[in-house]
Structure formats: structure tokens, C-alpha cells
């Protein structure tokens, strides 16, 4: 599969070129346009593999859809253009057998060699991190595409690193995080508007996003008519 990411960073879209027999699994609703030589299948499971309804439901809790769309090229050189719903960037992450933990709505598409599952981060983290209860756990080898709200930036963590809640896109599972206060005193943390933060430790790569979707939503919401 060849890929190209166009119109970065705000209106980004990924153009994928697949050869006959190759397939890619995408987030539901990600398809913008495509050549006619694709077979499209909607399932609750990973392509050709296990999973099924339980994994699907877990994925739903992780902020993704219960269903996955599998696009399989039936002819050579078929192009598929995919993009996320909100304004933001797309990155390509080549997986080589490791595991990447992805924030619920940041998973866009992955090659068939990647197993997608939801992972539980613990109740405390779920309640206080401002992220969803489950995260999407990607493992295996192949091309993985992630999207962000706003720009995306990588951080190589060695030791410790602090990220405000809502700004995590993905991290390698060699990293661990716990919830902590932004400043030494709890009052100070909240007055500073940072509240609780995610404290990462270990060695590995972390991807952050410049903007935090709930912050933007809370800014817009009160100005709109009640639903």
C-alpha cells in the first residue's frame, strides 16, 4: 500500500493506493471518495480474524463505532481517500510488532496485520483523565493512520512527561501514565485551569494534539440554542 497525506494540517486527508487483494480497515464514515474497484464490508470484527461482537462493544465504549469498514481492492491501483470528521491532522505510524494505545476517537484506519481491541485503563484514570474509559489498543505490524483535533506533535519520553487531559492522541505501551495534579497544591492546579494532568513515565513515543475537543465543545455549547 502506498499512502500520501494531503492538505495538512487542518483539512488533512489520506490518499491510499492499494493493489488487488490488499485491504484496509477504516473508521466508519471515514471514506471521502474511492475508485470503483473496492469491495466494502462492514463487520464488528477485525478483518479475517477474531473479535466479534464483544470487541465491537468494547470499541464502542472507546469512542469508536461498533462497526468497522473493510475496503478490499479487487483490481490493481485502486485509490481510497479517507479523512476524519473534525478539522485536524493525520499521521502515519508504521507498526512493527509493538503495541500502541490510541485515544478513542483518534484511530482512523489500519492495515489488516494490525489487531484492534479496546483496552481498559482503570476506573480512576477513566473518571479523571477526561478521556474515555476504554482506549483502542493496536498491535501487530502494518500501516496505522491516526487523526487529531488540531495539530499533532510527537514527544519522545525518557523518564517522565506531563500532558494535560484531552491532549493525548496515542502512546507506545512501553509508557505508563497515572493521573496527578498539575501543581503541588490541589487548589493551585484547579485555579490554573489545568486541573488534573496525565503523568507519563517510562521510555517511548507519545503523540499529543494541540487542541482539546471537549474544551472547544464547552466553548461553543452554551452559545447554541438548547437541543
Amino acid at each position, binding site marked *: 500500500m502506498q499512502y500520501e497525506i*494531503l492538505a495538512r494540517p487542518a483539512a488533512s*486527508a489520506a490518499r491510499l493506493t492499494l493493489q488487488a487483494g490488499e485491504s484496509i480497515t477504516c473508521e466508519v464514515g471515514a471514506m471521502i471518495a474511492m*475508485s470503483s474497484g473496492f469491495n466494502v464490508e*462492514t463487520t464488528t470484527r477485525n478483518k479475517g480474524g477474531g473479535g466479534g461482537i464483544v470487541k465491537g462493544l468494547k470499541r464502542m465504549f472507546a469512542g469508536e463505532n461498533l462497526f468497522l469498514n473493510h475496503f478490499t481492492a479487487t483490481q490493481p491501483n485502486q485509490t481510497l481517500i479517507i479523512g476524519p470528521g473534525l478539522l485536524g491532522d493525520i499521521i502515519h505510524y508504521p507498526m512493527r510488532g509493538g503495541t500502541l494505545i490510541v485515544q478513542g476517537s483518534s484511530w482512523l484506519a489500519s492495515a489488516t496485520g494490525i489487531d484492534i481491541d479496546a483496552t481498559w485503563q482503570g476506573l480512576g484514570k477513566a473518571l479523571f483523565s477526561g478521556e474515555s474509559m476504554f482506549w483502542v489498543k493496536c498491535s501487530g505490524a502494518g500501516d496505522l493512520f491516526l487523526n487529531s483535533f488540531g495539530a499533532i506533535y510527537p514527544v519522545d519520553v525518557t523518564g517522565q512527561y506531563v500532558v494535560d487531559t484531552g491532549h493525548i492522541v496515542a502512546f507506545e505501551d512501553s509508557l505508563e501514565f497515572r493521573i496527578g495534579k498539575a501543581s503541588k497544591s490541589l487548589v493551585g492546579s484547579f485555579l490554573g485551569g489545568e486541573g488534573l494532568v496525565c503523568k507519563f513515565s517510562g521510555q517511548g513515543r507519545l503523540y499529543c494534539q494541540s487542541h482539546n475537543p471537549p474544551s472547544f465543545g464547552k466553548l461553543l*455549547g452554551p452559545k*447554541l440554542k438548547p437541543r
Partner: protein
Amino acid sequence: MIEFTCPSCQKHYRVNDELAGKTAKCKQCGGTFQVPMPVVPAEVDEYAVSSAPVAASVQASAAPIAAAVVDGRGTSAILSGNTGNFEYEISQRPDFALVTVKMQQGQKVFAEPSAMASMTPSVTLKAGFKGGLGRTIGRALGGESLIINTFTADQGPGEVTFAAGAPGDAAYYRLQGNTLYVQRGAFMLHSEGVDLTGKWQGAKGFFSGEGLVLLKASGTGDIFFNSYGAILQVDVTDQYIVDTGYIVAFEDTLQYRVTILPGLRAGGKLKSFFFGGEGLVCQFSGQGKVWVQTRHVHSFLSWVHPFRPASKN
């Protein structure tokens, strides 16, 4: 900007492009050098997305993870040229596209109301109905305003800058007696010689959920249209499928039909239609160009919806 280092002391400089080739003196070591020519990035025409694979595509390689991002430089290039009627420039692409047209004395352009951002005082603006009542109603059905603003450069040559209501891209198309269909709301402005009407699309339009009507632009002249997100141009040579919400415009040499994703109808795969989220697509066939936008206002609206306050009753 040109970036270079002093050949003798390695001091780093950033200077304006117009200084290229000039001889200058280093502020640090006093040595003289010639400012190098700006490095022009290799022009990869990513604006034109063809149905065939593009040689410039970067292969998913074993490069370091951080660098495995391809720059979509083509989508941010300034588009400019001479339409035959006037000079135009589309700048600040793809997120905040501005369309500037330079008019000769007496020339006119017709634009969607509130599309004008700024203009020279030599241009006068007149709001009004154009092309009679029938046309006007046709346009209204097409999701465009009843009123079309006429900009006339009657006090001498002038310049008008237009921008769309939503942040996004803009594109230019030259009509040469043929017809272009423009998605509802995407019309920005056109020159003299272009006839703009709403066209009833029947059930095709109904099922696409994007309004009943596409605007039909025909004649000989220039038309500019805008999008939410970037615009990608696709040259269709046989068949191509676009999600109905992402169509901006297409040439009338293409046949189209609104359908559920092909391959889903057979074999009881209707599940994809109901749960797959890709719902309705537009299947184009024939030869011609389609312009596709990379974002969709409806996705944004449905995302904002849960943040709205709950109504009191």
C-alpha cells in the same frame, strides 16, 4: 524566505527572497558572500488527484516514525492566472482561501451575497435579482440566495477580494460552452457570460440528503466555488465513487447516480448501508473532473450537538 549560513563563520541567516543573488557582508565576521537562490520545493502536483496512482506517492517505508509524514504542499499553493476576462489569485489555501479578481474598467462579476471581503473604491456593488424571477427561484431551490450581488468596475480598474462563509478552500473553473454542476452552497462568484440556474435532481437529489438541487452553471466564462476543508480535483476516466456529502462540483460529461456502495446490494450485505456510515455515495461514470472536499460541515455539526445545553422541558 531564504535560509543559509555564512560560508566563513557559519552564522545562520534568514532573509527575504528578493535579496537572492545580492552580495552581502556578514554581520559577525565581516566576510562577504553572495545570498543563495531560494530553494524551490519540488513541485508535486498534489492538487490534481488522479484516479491512477501518482508516481510521487511516498511509499510506506522503514523510515523513522517521526519523519513518516508527507507534506501536502500542492494543496496550499497559490493558484493564479488570467481567465481571459481578468486576472485572479486564490491565496491562503486550503484553510482560509481568498479569491482576488482584478477587473478592467466596465467589467462585472456576480457573487453570492456577503462573499465580498474587501474591494477598491473604483468598484460599485449592486444587489439585485439576476436573470428574472424563474432563474432566481431556481437558484433559491439550489440553496443559494435569491439575491446576487453585481460588482462593476465602473470608476476605473478595480480589485475585489472574496471569501466564503466557512473556512476552507476555493477553486476556479473556466466554462467553455459546457456545463458544470455545483453542490448547494458551494457557489462563490462568476463572470459575465455564465448562466447560473438551479436544476431539479429528482429522486437522485432527494436521496443524497444534500438538498434537492445542484446549481447548474453553463455558458462561456469563469466560475469560482468554495468548500469546507481542502478541495481535491479528481480526473475520472472510467468510474469513481464519492460520498454524497463531499461533492463540491463536477463536469456534466460525467453521468452520475446516487446509490448505496456498489458491491453491497448483492448477497444481503445491506448491513454496510445501515451501519457502515458511508450510506449514500455518488457513482460517477464517464470522463470528466470531480472536485471533492476533505471535510463536511455536517460532521462538525453532529459533533457539536451533544455540547448544546439541554432544553428546560
